[in-house]
């Protein structure tokens, strides 16, 4: 196995596109190194992106935020502007693993690992985040379209995610992410719900609802957003939201939970998540 640590995105892309065998991108390594140790992958090339300056910072842009692919979970938490703008996104990213893992793991890594249960992904989808992809040319893909199946992404050979962009939040908006795990931490979501919403004169004017761990890919559930748009999140709206989320689920029965359980808890968590987002938006 060859290990490379280029200092520019261009060099990283050249290495990846030039490799004939199995090539992998190493950021925090919290998924990749585990898979390497478990013998589920046998890389020919590993490209470490932590020495690429552009990938290692969070920048405030004219349109919002740009989060580099090598930025750790712990660094996100330290960025006060980002926490203020997108608390749900940062909380979701910070739920992953332990403190030690947070020092290494990255949100882009969480996205590229493409687990249906990835914690940061529903929050990113709800926030309207986009992945900035660099290869032969640069392209931008909405996060909800990035993951194409369990462990599968839309990345072509030689492509790499350079950063994730988040819009500047609208006035009177709020976001939140909740997941269900049987323990208190160090666990993987049985259900995850990310919601962002914007109020206009106290009424929900726009919303995005995303579910994780209930389908082969994280879902953007438009029917769930519709259920609360135009409401003040009264009980009827919350019930409609829960029903829409339950209906959108397409889960499997597995060691982590039954179909019945996931469908039910998706609705329960959606209500709780919506209430937090609503309160953060200044709703009463």
């Amino acid at each position: 196995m060859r290990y490379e640590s280029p200092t520019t995105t261009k060099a990283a892309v050249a290495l990846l596109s030039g490799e004939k065998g199995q090539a992998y991108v190493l950021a925090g390594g919290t998924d990749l190194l585990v898979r390497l140790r478990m013998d589920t992958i046998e890389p020919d090339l590993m490209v470490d992106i932590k020495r690429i300056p552009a990938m290692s910072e969070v920048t405030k842009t004219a349109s919002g935020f740009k989060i580099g692919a090598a930025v750790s979970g712990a660094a996100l938490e330290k960025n006060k502007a980002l926490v203020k703008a997108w608390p749900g996104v940062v909380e979701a990213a910070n739920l992953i693993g332990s403190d030690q893992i947070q020092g290494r793991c990255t949100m882009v890594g969480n996205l590229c690992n493409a687990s249906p249960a990835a914690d940061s992904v529903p929050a990113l989808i709800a926030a309207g985040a986009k992945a900035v992809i660099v290869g032969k040319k640069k392209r931008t893909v909405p996060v909800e379209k990035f993951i194409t199946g369990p462990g599968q992404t839309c990345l072509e050979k030689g492509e790499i995610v350079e950063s994730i962009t988040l819009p500047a939040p609208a006035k009177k908006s709020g976001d939140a992410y909740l997941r269900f795990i049987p323990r208190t931490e160090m666990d993987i979501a049985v259900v995850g719900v990310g919601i962002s919403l914007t109020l206009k004169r106290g009424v929900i004017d726009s919303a995005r609802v995303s579910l994780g761990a209930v389908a082969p890919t994280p879902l953007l559930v438009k029917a769930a957003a519709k259920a609360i748009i135009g409401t003040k999140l009264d009980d009827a709206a919350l019930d409609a939201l829960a029903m829409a989320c339950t209906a959108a689920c397409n889960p499997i029965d597995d060691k982590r939970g039954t179909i019945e359980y996931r469908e039910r808890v998706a609705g329960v968590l959606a209500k709780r998540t919506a209430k937090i987002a609503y309160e953060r938006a200044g709703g009463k």
Partner: protein
Amino acid sequence: MNDPKYTGQEFKVVGTRVKRPDGLDKVTGRARYGADMSAPGQLVGLMLRSPHAHARIKKIDASKAEKLAGVKAVITSADLPDLTGGNSGLYDTLENCMARDRALYDGHAVAGVAAIDRTTAKKALKLIKVTYEKLPHVTDVDEALNDDAPIVQPRYAQDGRHGNLINKGEFGHGDIDKGFAEADVIVERSYKTGQTHQGYIEPHACLASVSPDGTGELWVTTQGHFAYRNNCAQLLGMDIAKLKVTSSEIGGGFGGKTHVWMEPIALALSRKANRPVKMVMSREEVFKASGPTCSTSMDIKIGAKKDGTIVAARAECRYMNGAFPGMWGTLGGMTAFACYNIANNKAIGVNVLCNRPKVAAYRAPSAPMMAFGVESTIDQLAKELGTDPVELRLKNVAKEGTLAPYGPVWGPIGIEPTLEAVRDHPHMRAKLGKNQGRGVACGFWFNIGGQTCSDLNIGPDGTVNLTVGTIDVGGARASLALIAAEELGIAYEDVRTNIGDTSSLGHNDTTEGSRGTFSSGMATIFAARKAIDVLKERAAKMWQIPVEAVTWEDGSAHAVGNEHDNLSPLTLKDIAKKAGNTGGPIAGHHEATADGAGVSFASHIVDVEVDPETGKTTILRYTVVQDAGKAIHPDYVEGQFQGAAAQGIGWALNEEYIYGEDGRLQNGAFLDYRMPVCSDLPSIDTKILEIPNPSHPYGIRGVGETSIVPPLGAIGNAVSNAVGVRMYEVPMSPPRILKALDDASA
């Protein structure tokens, strides 16, 4: 001098909370565990394991692996002739270490490889071609007893009973039919519990080295290096005295390291390769191919008079033993009604085989499951009678003089005092909020004694080496040093306890059954007293007076009688310094089979909150009350209480082996085998009661196991009280609780 009777002596250092002798090395990483030893020229050993739950092994072709550069040995069952001489238990061990004609569970070893490095060994595993013929399998304890269930071990099948039913252990007394006829209220329920693993943090690991001259050495993480030595030597045809086994520090065992797994294979590989071989299990291997505990299914029936007198009780519990028979059902049957005085009682423990790994001991093995059924039923009985569940237990509690269900008449025991302490504990009066519930349950464990052999050697500077053969899994080195210091009358810091290897002491039984501090403690007391006899002789020699005129007090020899008024006392250090001139090194030794292990009882209180929308349970508060006999080192005793309760909490709420339709384990990793993490647990309160064991000089009872017995029942009662619906299955995972709520409201 060697009378083990309790004397009620006053203690000076026993009972104090001294620093642990292994603490610094453990927190700095200096301590050496199973995987921390290396030898020049060592090879890496890896195991090829069956991917099938049940399959005939038609052919193993290892020729390509053997030809791979860097591979030094490949072992299959063909390299392991049956040397067990008709000992069926030993043959089971042989077959479990390496499958013979059939693979009996997912993860069963089928071949072993030793190579110059891990990469080569992994490559070699891939080159071994095994031809399997898949056979029908069964992994559920109830399904295993269906008429059409595949028979796991035809050699154990007998006419007149199901081929997977090995035996039934039946215990009790009185006439239960007559008892139930007299009952005004009868509660009869069925329960199930999932299979759990001890979850020790350190995987199995060893370094094996066999010389062409027939001698061998094994460095290994184990609870019993003598048992490992005996087993390995017998399986491999070695002389017991020529195999030296050294126990490493142990990162938890809880019963799972009482049994050999890959160690005989490591030795066999080393013998074949003529190089040292190191083997370290992965976590997945630990889950799939070491010895978890039984899953169970049971029926409990208890009947009482209107006044609360329990007049009859019956329990039948089916214990899933894995692919090889054990005594697990039998142990469970003995424990079922041990906490109570019931005129007519019968408990049956049934041993059943399934295509799962060979079950090993897990902390008070078999008792927690039975207690889940019995303690849940007693709470329901209290409800039917309209009485308080703690009062109902106290009304029927076993006392000194009660005939125990498994035969003996109880001496002084602690179940009533622990229940009274629970009843009077402030925890019982703390207010509960919405969706919260409280539960109480009791538990019993036997504890054992067994073969023990210890040496106590006094150095020239008067410091003391205590060498014992029971490995230290729960603080025994500190406790035994306290005992030696107490007897000799010297400072704790002047005693260093070591675990001797198998060549340095006579056979010691495994550290199991909470026997370490009880039995090695007893041997330490008598070894120290023998050393004191020698110290007195030496003092007499130094003073040139008769030994009858010398007494030993507070760490010094004293000359008695007016004629010796001029002789000032000689300390242990004074005498040790002159040992070379007075007869040589000073030592004490004791070997015995320690009898009279004191039974231990516990009662627990737990408060929980259940989220009715997700079914998730949070443990809010937990209190353990247990009889320790005498707490030699209270910190360690409390640690045992807390650790046992923590493991019980995990078992009650989320831990469970999950098998797929294909008979393969779905969750062989800590991510999906959900043990509690720190933040899942409250700080567990403890209360130590000391009801001395009459058969130990210090009153010691084993303390390590009992407190894993009550948590399943206590949490079952608490959750049921919180949600208003009775839970009949462990683990009470969120999906199970939510489903129970749905079923109840449907």
